[in-house]
């Protein structure tokens, strides 16, 4: 842990963002520190998913003001794949199904794209499969995940585990988890949390988006940020969770 208050891996500075003609983020600021778990909580429709989409450069979102600084560089004009290659990962609230694209082939392409970007040797099919099997086991996933099409016909839990599998294999530096806990039974929640906790290495940062505190029993947050009406209205330590549970979001004052 560093005492340097200026040490930030991601700085979201007064971001205004629109979807269609509707302004969703209205001057949102937030800093992520390396090695820390930041939880974002807020009611449905507050703009939590929009924030995650803005960070990864989703086409739905038009940034109309502010800046996003990642490792000291403005990334607001970067392509989504550049952000990913540089180490930003989003676990989607609703991962899309892609029939006909084999899950293992997809993930190997992604892993090798990143390795190539980092100047590392690409993994051949056999090397990759060995790795993938290791993680499948760890996450309690069936081995047919290798041969199935990407997310096609996956249950809600399988989709979320598959997101975590990708996260683990891509080894990102900033990990955004959008409602990773929604629709998970207790076993899946445990497996997913275990995967996330394994990724904690003192350097990686996590942005855990949830409107429900359950996941925070498993992944201990360092900071809680409350997002309401397109802005972060409060930042505090983990003690805020209990307060939110008791009094709800409406009781929070800026």
């Amino acid at each position, binding site marked *: 842990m560093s005492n340097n208050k200026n040490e930030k891996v991601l700085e979201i500075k007064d971001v205004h963002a629109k979807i269609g003609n509707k302004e969703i983020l209205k001057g949102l600021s937030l800093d992520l520190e390396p090695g820390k778990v930041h939880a974002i909580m807020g009611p449905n429709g507050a703009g939590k998913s929009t924030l995650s989409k803005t960070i*990864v450069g989703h086409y739905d979102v038009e940034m109309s003001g502010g800046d996003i600084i990642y490792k000291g560089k403005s990334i607001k004009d970067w392509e*989504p794949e550049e952000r990913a290659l540089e180490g930003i990962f989003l676990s989607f609230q609703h991962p*899309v199904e*892609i029939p006909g*694209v084999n899950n293992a082939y997809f993930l190997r392409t*992604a892993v090798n794209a990143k390795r190539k970007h980092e100047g590392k040797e690409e993994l051949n099919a056999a090397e990759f499969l060995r790795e993938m099997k290791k993680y499948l086991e760890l996450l309690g996933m069936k081995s047919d995940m290798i041969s199935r099409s990407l997310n096609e016909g996956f249950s809600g839990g399988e989709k979320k585990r598959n997101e975590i599998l*990708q996260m683990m294999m891509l080894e990102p530096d900033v990990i955004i988890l959008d409602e990773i806990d929604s629709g998970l039974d207790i076993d899946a929640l445990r497996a997913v949390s275990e995967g996330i906790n394994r990724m904690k290495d003192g350097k990686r940062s996590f942005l855990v988006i949830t409107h429900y505190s359950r996941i925070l029993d498993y992944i201990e947050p360092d900071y809680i940020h409350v997002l309401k009406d397109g802005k972060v209205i409060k930042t505090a330590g983990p003690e805020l969770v209990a307060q939110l549970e008791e009094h709800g979001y409406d009781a929070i004052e800026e």
Partner: protein
Amino acid sequence: MTLTINNLKKKSKDEIAQMLGLTDDLPPSKEAALERLAELGIPTKKSEEYRYFDVESLLDKSYEVHLHVPKEPKIGEKIVIENGVIIEVPKGMRVYYDQCDALDLTHYDPIYYLSHLLAPHVIKIDLDGDAEVELVHRYTHSGALLPYRIVLFNQENRHATVYETFETEEISESLILYGYDMHIAKDSTLRLIKTQSMDENRYAMISSNRIKVNDHANAIIKTFDLGGDHALQLLKVDLGTYSHIDAGHLLYLNHQAKRGTVSKINHIGEHSTSQQEAKNILDGNARGIFDALIKVEHSAKWTKAHQNSKAILLHEDAYMAAKPQLEIYIDELEASHGATTGQLDRKQIFYLQSRGISYVEARKMLVIAFANTLIETVKDTRHQERIQKAFEKAFYAGHKELKR
């Protein structure tokens, strides 16, 4: 001799014969071809089967008619036909020049007859046993009109496969009139796997085919048409009793390409079945064609006919002309047909990009996922990989200047 095919328009049988330099003592098959050509007339943009294809501008050019001079082929691994001349034949395989003695007198395509008239002879291929053969076509002349035809026979109770590909040197402005007369023997299977990658502005092709599927026989026709330029394959398929055709057509077109399939599948025998699937991926200014009629005759009770076309447009200027049609004269049958056109799913592209896969690569993965259901029907892994590579090559060529 030079020839502008459009000059044969609205001419009588005798005039056509004279203009093509055909002497009086023609063999009966050529006489018949002449008669049919005069009857059908040279295709125009108003001809139904050519309505989506720029046939007039192709036929309006003057070409040097390139007539093949037979020479002794060498023994090799494949059948190689260069400019209509057999130059390589696998050992023991029966590939030879002959007269065409079994012309289809009810073909709908005038170019079928014209190519028969212009070709001095046909190339006969007798497939013995469970043959598996590669057939390579090669073109080396510019500004040429090259007419040649293949007559193909297989044997009863046998399962033969032909893998067909096309090569070219750096030629331009040639027109190839080509096609099969295919006679698929009783109780046999013939598989034809055709891959045709074309660059822009090398040659155009009208390939006019007749496929006779005899009783209890199977025709498996898979065509992979990739790249640019102008080419139309016209199929006429006649199905006997308990016969079956499984036709699959993959189109990946870019640039200014206009290519595709015009087909008429005639169910003549009882219990005949047909399945035809077209998958079309169109980029740039390309136009894809799938103009396909399935006709079920009175005699063809208890048939099954299924036909489907799906297209993905990768560019706003791309266009798919899909016209699946059923013409049915009985009601004891099972039939379906349909056509859809759409775009790649942005959400899917984004998902792949968000994992570090580039925009072009993401599109390629999705396009291949779409195409793969057809490519994977080629069971032989070596040929499957070859087709996949050809596909990727055409895809990347079309994406060189891709802007998002």
